[in-house]
């Protein structure tokens, strides 16, 4: 049975809709026969792709003109709701923009947020599933009020699916006067380019951690990644240490990856790292400590020194051509 209208916060870069948006649309379609999007940008740019993934309408604010999405989009949604719009739930991705929109909206509606969602079910009302303790347990939570339910959904929780639908109709969503809370302005955007496949889309990911010992040794990870057509990744320990940019980070505060093969070298497997890569189809771990928690999720675990195993592995792969 349909739960009623669900709104999905749509995000896009240069007109390409974010994977997390398409993933949430697929889940929302399973739960509801009317799914609409809210978009902080020009609706015409995304209406076709959103429609093809099941959105019937997109409520778009038009260009945010440097405003941050949090106050602007939350303000617009709250105004639409007080004007009569009545979604039963609003799904936002656990992204930089999505978390801000959910936080601001929660105060505007005086409604709680259910966060870190990896599954949503209909049990006489929506129930969100959140992994705790590195994913060893799952907590199912529902709202107790009849206000729209705000859910923050983790990337890679659902499979995106096209429905073959036509373009979503575009409706204007007005941003009300935000007062001082809307005063922040983006003055410049920088893109940190990395070569090869994108970390969260790559079929193979090779990640390194503190066990590499020193920043220069990350080259081993990059060479192996290049050899396998993989994306290089990292644990937070070496991101914080400044060895690699933040965009390499896999885990709770980094990217969620679900490649066919994930290779973890010199990574202990802290719960915050595990939640970002546990969904990988196959996991290979190299660590000199047989007690390292990463071995608990590994399909192939090598108890050994990365400084020995990685160079030998590279040599063997190079020898194969």
């Amino acid at each position, binding site marked *: 049975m349909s739960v009623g209208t669900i709104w999905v916060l749509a995000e896009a870069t240069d007109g390409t809709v974010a994977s997390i948006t398409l993933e949430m649309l697929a889940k929302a379609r399973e739960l509801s026969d009317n799914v609409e999007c809210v978009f902080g940008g020009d609706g015409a740019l995304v209406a076709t792709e959103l429609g093809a993934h099941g959105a019937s309408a997109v409520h778009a604010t038009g260009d945010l003109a440097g405003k941050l999405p949090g106050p602007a989009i939350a303000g617009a949604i709250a105004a639409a709701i007080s004007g009569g719009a009545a979604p039963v739930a609003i799904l936002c991705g656990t992204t930089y923009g999505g978390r801000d929109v959910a936080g601001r909206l929660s105060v505007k509606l005086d409604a*709680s947020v259910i966060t870190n969602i990896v599954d949503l079910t209909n049990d006489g009302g929506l129930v969100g599933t959140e992994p705790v303790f590195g994913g060893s347990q799952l907590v199912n*939570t529902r709202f107790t009020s009849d206000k729209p339910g705000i859910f923050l959904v983790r990337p890679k929780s659902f499979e995106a699916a096209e429905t073959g639908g036509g373009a979503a109709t575009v409706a204007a969503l007005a941003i009300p006067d935000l007062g001082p809370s809307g005063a*922040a302005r983006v003055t410049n955007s920088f893109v940190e380019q990395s070569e090869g496949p994108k970390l969260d889309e790559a079929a193979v990911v090779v990640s390194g951690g503190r066990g590499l010992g020193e920043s220069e040794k990350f080259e081993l990870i990059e060479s192996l990644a290049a050899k*396998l057509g993989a994306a290089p990744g990292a644990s937070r320990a070496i991101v914080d240490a400044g060895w690699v940019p933040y965009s390499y980070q896999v885990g709770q505060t980094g990217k969620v990856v679900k490649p066919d093969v994930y290779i973890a070298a010199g990574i202990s497997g802290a719960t915050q790292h595990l939640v970002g890569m546990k969904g990988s189809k196959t996991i290979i771990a190299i660590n000199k400590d047989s007690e390292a928690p990463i071995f608990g999720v590994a399909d192939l675990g090598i108890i050994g020194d990365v400084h020995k195993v990685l160079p030998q592995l590279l040599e063997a792969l190079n020898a194969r051509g």
Partner: protein
Amino acid sequence: MKVAVCVKQIPDPADPGALDPSTNTLKRDVKLILDESDSYGVEMALQLVDAAGGGEVTLISMAPNNEVNGLRTALAMGADKAILVSDDALAGSDALGTSKVLAAAIARSEPDLVLAATESSDGYTGTVPEQIAELMGLPSVTFAKSIEVADGAVKVQRQTEEGYDDVECPLPCLVSVTAGVVEPRYPSFKGIMAAKSKPVDEVSIADLGIDAGSVGWAGGGQEIVSVIDAPVRDAGEIIEDEGEAYERIVAFLDELKVI
């Protein structure tokens, strides 16, 4: 410049937590420590006040049982004073309830700038900073990887999916910081001694003018339906490297058709 820093006091993450089966919330009966995520905000505040040529760093924390252990660590780093909200009525508060309490406590210190971490280590809802900003009617910049203050405004490099944005925002405002924004200092022996006599203002929710019905279990807008064990991955093959383990990896990658 006056800076208020949110600091959460949490059970030691090295001591794996557990859910209290009667309430399905994290057990909080152990001694709490400063959430490492907040040590970055404390350090940033100290540096910004220094750069501004003076001011005051006030810590803001909500914690059970008048816990001050984590606050003392941050005071030892150099913060000037703390406001601690501890009240039995707060047990079970969700992120929104927590934010209402923190916003009211922060307002008492009349800051030019409010700092928080992007997410806490134990709760990691990641919504509290933005909820505080909205409750206080403040602009905000989340996910800061660097902060500068000049001419009554902050200039922030804000993390994005692709890289970062330069964001400008007038004071007063709230900024949430990522780990790595600055390197937190270790408290010196002198700092630790000095922290013992720094003022910690302990307030109740009545002092803040907050109605007990809007926070804690009573004010929470959600309920836990069930807690289940996640499916476990099948145990894998573990081998000790005797000099040939790389061959097993090559063979494995071959089986998987990666090479």
